[in-house]
């Protein structure tokens, strides 16, 4: 039984001026799964995320979310549709309180009551955030900021959560916490599409892997297939021993 593809990306080309960062990317994210995109720096992974989120406009190609074409849509329509991106480096609003960060995540929603219910649920799921609710987000530790960034994105009730390098700069213990949360999201029915350099941790959690190199997808497969490939193993699994010294 194959799950329907929630996100379909077909031959997407995105350019910065004359330089094409995405040279025709195609991949699918099945509903209810965790899909992981691996690749070296500069491969175009963040560019892909920003293109899906609507910050960048693809030159060519199709992006379909739940059947509807969202290529070229502005970010507000994409978020309203149910796609939220947790950006690389978290980008929390450092001068704003944790609570304000979370409420900002619900910016497009009009259902006041439900927003505050969700806020309460976020505090329950991430107790550390409740403790720090009135603190400026900039004073939080790296791991707490990552949790905040995830919670903030979840406040828009996305069906698909995009995550750009959630383990970046975090200690191994904290990375474990984050990935437990990601696994929990899948259990609730949220689809996750994440970019990672730390393939090891993702191995335990992801259902499907894609590898991107120089603007194109060069491999796709299950975690088992990934681990069996010699070249990939050496490049992305063997060398990645100390993830927090990226």
């Amino acid at each position, binding site marked *: 039984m194959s799950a329907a593809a929630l996100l379909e990306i077909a031959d997407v080309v995105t350019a910065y001026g004359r330089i094409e960062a995405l040279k025709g990317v195609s991949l699918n994210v099945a509903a209810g799964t965790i899909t992981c995109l691996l690749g070296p720096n500069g491969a175009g992974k963040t560019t892909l995320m920003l293109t899906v*989120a609507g*910050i960048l406009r693809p030159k060519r190609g199709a992006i379909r979310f739940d059947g509807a074409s969202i290529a070229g849509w*502005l*970010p*507000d329509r994409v*978020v*309203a549709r149910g796609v*939220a*991106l947790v*950006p690389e480096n978290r*980008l*929390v*609003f*450092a*001068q*704003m309180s944790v609570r*304000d960060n979370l*409420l*900002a*995540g619900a*910016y*497009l929603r009009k259902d006041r009551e439900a927003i505050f219910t969700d806020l309460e649920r976020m505090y329950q799921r991430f107790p550390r955030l409740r403790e720090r609710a009135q603190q400026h987000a900039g004073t939080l530790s790296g791991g707490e900021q990552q949790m905040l960034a995830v919670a*903030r*994105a979840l406040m*828009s009730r996305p069906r698909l959560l995009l995550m750009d390098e959630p383990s970046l700069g975090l200690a191994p213990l904290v990375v474990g916490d984050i990935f437990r949360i990601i696994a929990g999201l899948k259990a609730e029915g949220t689809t996750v599409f994440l970019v990672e350099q730390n393939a090891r941790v993702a191995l335990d959690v992801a259902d499907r892997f894609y590898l991107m190199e120089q603007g194109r997808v060069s491999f796709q497969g299950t975690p088992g297939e990934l681990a069996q490939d010699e070249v990939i193993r050496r490049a992305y699994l063997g060398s990645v021993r100390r993830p927090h010294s990226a």
Partner: protein
Amino acid sequence: MIDAVQNTLDGLMIGSSYALLALGFTLTFGVMRRLNLAYGATIMAGVYLGTWLFLEQDAGVATAGIAAVGGAILAGLYVERVCFAPLSERAALASMVSSFAIWMQLEEAAMLALPRHTYPFPALVSGEPLALGPLALRLEHLLMLGSAVAIGAGLYFVLQRTRFGRALRAITDNALAARLLGMGVGAMRMRAFALAAAVGGIAGLLIATTDQQVTPMLGMWATIKGLVAMMLGGLGSLRGAVAGGLLLGVVETHAQWYFGPQVRDLVAFLLLFACLAVRPSGLFGARGGGRHPPAGAAHG
């Protein structure tokens, strides 16, 4: 002794007009991190519109007042569309110089409409000054102070407790993250400008009704005073804007009492220069803000 108290009181009153100007400045600077040099000129445009209606169309003070604020808002939106919307974040200098060009435009347009050196403006309140023992408080000044406090509190409420205010702060904090949450930077900027212009328009109106006259120097004066007050109080802080404005007013009034009007302005600029040399973050700005990070330090 009585003089000192009276001067301080007068200083607080005039300072509240500076506070209002600084509040408007802070809104746009806080959101844009770019300086709108046309701010005073947009206020002047509004006030001149109100004056023109009062003189040529026999408008009452209420109509003139509404026209002053409305005119300032229109002028503010014009500046936003021409100087800030079309230029990217990196072209901050170009935005600033462009706003200067529009300042000149607006000022000339105002002076073409009303060329003389001074025009009368109707008073908003009339009555004898309140006497508190040996001290005197002019009603117009009380209105100014009350307005500054009320608007300051209102802006604080809007920024801290409303969805709009939260979005504004988010966009200032990190524009990319804000856009990823669905916030539209362009629309938000327009509304911030309109709000700032409205605050400025109210400031201009109150000043015009207090002085009961309007001069072509209004634009330059409002820009300089607002800028100085904002810097003294700490860039980007609403509390700072009010505090800086009041401080400036008090210092100026005392300086004028002891040394005369020219020295008054000199003292204001020396105070600002000293403040920037010693403690650039002002009264309420972030500590360490204002100085370059030491060479090689990580970028914040």
